[in-house]
């Protein structure tokens, strides 16, 4: 359960980017999250609510965009989606892929400021 640490890191980065706009309230934070980031979405949402209390982010929405796993398949010689069960295998031909191109993302994409 490190989602509270993650939520606090999200708010730290968000604060840096909201600060130039003065005391404006933030309505939403958009993040990108891959299945390989090691973060449980539901736990993150609860932790975010807790961590944002009494800050300019209180009552803001945490909007999570899921990033699918994409691997480089050496057999297909192409970028391929990963198999939904065997995460590190090519969804097309099943070959185990050693290179993960997407899926580790834990990224703050954007802030939505109040009008």
């Amino acid at each position, binding site marked *: 359960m490190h989602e509270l*640490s993650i939520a606090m890191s999200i708010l*730290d980065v968000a604060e840096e*980017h909201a600060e130039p*706009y003065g005391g404006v309230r933030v309505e939403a934070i958009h993040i990108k999250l891959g299945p390989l980031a090691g973060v449980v979405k539901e736990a993150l949402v609860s932790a975010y609510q807790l961590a944002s209390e009494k800050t300019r982010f209180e009552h803001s929405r945490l909007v999570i965009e899921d990033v699918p796993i994409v691997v480089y398949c050496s057999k297909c010689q192409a970028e391929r989606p990963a198999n939904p069960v065997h995460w590190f295998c090519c969804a097309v031909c099943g070959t*185990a892929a050693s290179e993960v191109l997407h899926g580790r993302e834990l990224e703050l994409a954007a802030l939505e*400021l109040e009008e």
Partner: protein
Amino acid sequence: MNTKPRIVEVRQKVLKHNDEVARALRQRFQNAGVFVVSLVSSPGAGKTAFLEKTLTWLMQRGLRPAALVGDLATNNDAARLARSQAPVKQITTGTLCHLEAAMIQQSLDEWNLDELDFLFIENVGNLVCPSSYDLGEDLRLVLLSVTEGEDKPLKYPTIFNTADVAVVTKIDLAAAVEFDWAATNANIQSVRPGMSVIQVSAKTSQGMEEWMAFLASASQSAARTSRG
């Protein structure tokens, strides 16, 4: 404040602060010529026994290892590791389930890195949270004991996928628990194709020679890369 936009693009890693500290640490380790290995596993997989043996063997070979060990509470592990005569420091995380780069940075204060060849960082026993945090290590080692079940790599693919080498511990108990090596290795390879897997027993020292050879080769190739 009329010029304020509705949407502010950020596009930044959430753990960028940790990543920055880790990057600085990695540079510091490289400059001092220290090869750094972090150890992750579930609680009770045998990290401390394996590390105690590793420290002892390295000391006997005239090398200079040290260890940082993370736990929620107690200094028990540090006390065990100190029997190897290597410098050891405990990091007590309180309620935190993983180590972060800043904790490593703070713990290095009293040590002169130039006097070390190897630094081992034993993470808190946990197969989930440590996967997200870069500690500036050269090598991430994941341990799995024969008593844990062959499908552990499939249940915790993220930590196995981010590791560089896997060590199967307590191999002296393999027969008693009907450990299936082929299935374990196949599961590891399916989440991290091509990963080296070493079977060891800290009790009987089986596999320790192989691990020492792996460590020597990994540290030499890191040194070659850094000399560029």
